[in-house]
């Protein structure tokens, strides 16, 4: 198998158009090595391909077999009659929008959720999987969508949790450390066994999660959106590890939103929509556009068509800005940048190079050390979020759960969070529910927020729809400056397309847009101008038209 590359998402475009071939349609690695690695018996290798089950695209014995799995939460049908199978040594991708039921499906394999009906059989064992302990005993390992690590414990303690080695009644931490070191060498996932998990960056925490799963005997590894928080480099590293694991016989169920990753690493793809399997296809027989179409149920435009920008006056001017991070270290370190009306400036950079602190400073959420920020004639350097908002800054925050919405409030209230005390939503200090409601109904329509009504709590929405609430609120007051931080992180393809279109529309309406994203593809396709940051300062600025992916990658890595 070739190394996963960070090539364009259409890498499968020139492949033959045989969509939906009955499974198992194929596997492009039938090398002797691979087959040997996944063979369960030597005898199987001697047989002709039709009988051995190898070659002809068939990878190995069926390891996981799901039949008619159904699960409802109240009136929500999270999974409807799902059937799928995974063979030994195979990487199967589960693709679907937010809320399609992917996590529910895999949580049932791991014993976290009990199915209403249907069977999950692992290696032919059809008995109900009672709890995670049971699943682990049957060789299932899982990396969860939300990290399942104890923050105050060390890496070694986290890895040994649940299967501790004990000597003389006491924990044998030395052997746990050794186990972590061995595993991390074997899979080339560098971690320090004695580091406390909460001190580690998310990318490293993800490695710990994987090592934790691999520290037990796993035949089936489930990865629920493992790349959502990773940088492109870390993602490629992870895809490499997955490929190696599959080559040595581990089966993998891989959930992601990113079509590039599916195409780079999986053998087969199941597409879920509204709790149902709507398609199953061998990866080599499909491409990004068709996968996206299956996911959403309609054509999606993957590239954004936008006209050339017609920039106006300078709206935002940042001069020699210095901002510290939570630990008091310099995060933004002498950054200067301008954004004009009617243009999108994309800030590209590996996460942790001051982007978060820059945005928080601009939003008035973080104190500026030194330097200046000006919005037209207004000095924003010491403004608080209230003044920043009323100065005309719209802010789509990176962490929408924490800074974007109040989960226990209704959608309607969330849509007026920054205007609730202004007319027409409030008169003489009394809230005007009719106006609030009318506003919510209008925005729900306009921004396609899928919910049972505007009084539903925002916390119960899917990620993509939560994000649409934030976007609707921050765009509806027609900001002069729109700051969008990771606007499509963890959001499904349909919503991504929608949010991108709205950002471009805001630009066309004359807003200055500052886009911060860890997704280089997003930066490249949306921006008019690109500023590459490294070490808290802008190291290069270029027109998006002249931008070159590898060049930016090099600059992001600090090579300038």
């Amino acid at each position, binding site marked *: 198998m070739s190394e996963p590359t960070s090539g364009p998402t259409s890498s499968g475009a020139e492949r033959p158009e045989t969509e939906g071939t009955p499974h198992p349609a194929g596997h492009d690695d039938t090398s002797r090595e691979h087959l040997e690695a996944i063979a369960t018996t030597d005898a199987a290798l001697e047989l002709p391909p039709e009988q051995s089950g190898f070659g002809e695209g068939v990878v190995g014995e069926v390891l996981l077999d799901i039949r008619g799995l159904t699960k409802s939460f109240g009136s929500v049908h999270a999974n409807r009659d799902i059937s799928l199978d995974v063979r030994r040594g195979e990487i199967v991708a589960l693709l679907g929008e937010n809320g399609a039921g992917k996590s529910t499906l895999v949580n049932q394999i791991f014993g*976290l959720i009990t199915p209403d009906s249907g069977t999950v059989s692992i290696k032919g064992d059809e008995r109900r999987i009672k*709890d*995670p302990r049971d699943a682990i005993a049957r060789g299932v390992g899982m990396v969860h969508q939300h990290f*399942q690590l104890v*923050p*105050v*414990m060390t890496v070694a303690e986290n890895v040994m*949790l649940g299967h*501790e080695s004990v000597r003389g009644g006491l924990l044998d931490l030395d052997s746990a450390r050794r186990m972590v070191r061995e595993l991390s060498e074997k899979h080339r996932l560098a971690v320090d066994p004695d580091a406390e998990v909460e001190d580690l960056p998310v990318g490293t925490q993800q490695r710990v999660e994987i090592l934790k799963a691999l520290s037990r005997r796993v035949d089936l590894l489930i990865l629920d959106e493992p790349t959502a928080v990773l940088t492109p480099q870390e993602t490629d590293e992870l895809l490499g590890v997955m490929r190696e694991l599959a080559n040595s016989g581990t089966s993998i169920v891989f959930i992601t939103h990113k079509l590039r990753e599916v195409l780079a690493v999986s053998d087969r793809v199941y597409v879920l929509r509204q709790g149902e399997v709507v398609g199953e296809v061998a990866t080599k027989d499909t491409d990004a556009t068709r996968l996206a179409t299956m996911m959403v149920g309609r054509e999606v435009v993957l590239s954004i068509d936008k006209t050339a920008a017609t920039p106006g006056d300078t709206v935002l001017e940042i001069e020699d800005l210095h901002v510290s991070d939570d630990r008091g270290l310099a995060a933004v370190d002498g950054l200067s940048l301008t954004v004009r009306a009617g243009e999108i400036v994309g800030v590209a950079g590996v996460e942790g190079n001051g982007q978060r602190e820059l945005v928080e400073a601009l939003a008035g959420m973080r104190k500026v050390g030194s330097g200046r920020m000006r919005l037209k004639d207004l000095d924003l350097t010491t403004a608080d979020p209230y003044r920043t908002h009323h100065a005309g800054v719209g802010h789509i925050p990176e962490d929408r759960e924490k800074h974007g919405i109040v989960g226990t409030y209704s959608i309607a209230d969330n849509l007026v969070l920054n205007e609730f005390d202004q007319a027409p939503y409030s008169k003489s200090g009394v809230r005007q529910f009719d106006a609030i409601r009318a506003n919510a109904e209008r925005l729900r329509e306009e921004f396609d927020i899928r919910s049972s009504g505007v009084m539903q709590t925002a916390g119960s929405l899917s990620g993509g729809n939560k994000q649409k609430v934030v976007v609707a609120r921050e765009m509806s007051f027609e900001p002069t400056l729109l700051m969008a931080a990771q606007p499509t992180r963890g959001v499904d393809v349909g919503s991504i397309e929608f949010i991108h279109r709205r950002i471009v529309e805001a630009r066309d309406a004359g807003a200055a847009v500052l886009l911060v994203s860890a997704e280089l593809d997003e930066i490249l396709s949306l921006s008019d101008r690109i500023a590459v940051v490294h070490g808290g300062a802008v190291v290069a600025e270029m027109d998006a038209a002249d931008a070159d992916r590898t060049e930016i990658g090099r600059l992001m890595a600090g090579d300038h």
Partner: protein
Amino acid sequence: MQTWIAKNRTTLVIAAVVVVAAYVFYYAKNDIAPSMYVSAWGYAIPLVLASLVGVIGERSGVVNIGIEGQMLIAAFAGFFVAAYSGSMLAGVLAGVGSGLVAGAFLAWTTVRWRMDQIIAGVVLNIVATGITSFYYTPGQILPGVIPNLTVPGLSSIPLIGDVFFTGESAIALFAIVAALLVHVGLFRTRWGLRTRAVGEYPSAADTAGIDVERLRIINVTLAGSLAGLAGVYLSMDASSTFERSMTAGRGFLALAIMIMGMWRPLRAFSMALFFGFISAVASQLQQTGGFAVPPQLTGTLPYVATLVVLAVAAGRVRAPGAVGQPYVKKDQ
């Protein structure tokens, strides 16, 4: 070892200073110091046991506001069972047993039925006050005393031997052992690793194959027996009589000690000693009356100290991550 010393430098320095000061005081003022130390340890014993109850509960993710009630019930049950049966052993067992039952009550209501932990604890305290006041009958006496022991070897250490290991009641010695055991258990054993995981981040424990509810129920229930022993100590050892509300807020003080001890058994032990010492100082001041301070004011000294230390500690210490939250599985 070196990293351990580096990490705990401040604590070690403070500990060294305190120990040196204690010895200096002991020999410089040997008219009052020895008796003050003994009475300090006497105050501290139930606080040590009760703070361990808090530590075990909160380390597993369950707040125990009901320690006060657990102690009170046990003090009551221990005293009256001993008085009526004529057997000290039966009394101790009844006290510890009733502590267990009270622990089980808290465990099942909060962990299994997910009742609010604060409310469950308050209920426990109210019920305890009610029952023990209602059935209280004056004029009973204990059939004997809790045996006193001297530990050979350890008792010959200057100061420490005199205060902790010479002619000490079995319960006092047990409190020392319990603090050590819980400490080692919490930080060095499988049970401890799992307990801490369950109290910090229960879903991580669950996905690692650990039964969160079961472990919490076991821990909270068993911790109840330590609260029981603390109650037994009050009515059968320290005072040889039961009085209404005789726990006098010790259960709550124990929670403060737990916080100042940063949810670590040995630090909680030290903080209990500190409070014992403050109390001893307060009563010494009352006796000697050397200062022109009214006794009502000196009596508040331990509580003022609590306030000051808690105010200083607040914001510097961190409770276990999942404390107070019932663990709800994904599809429930």
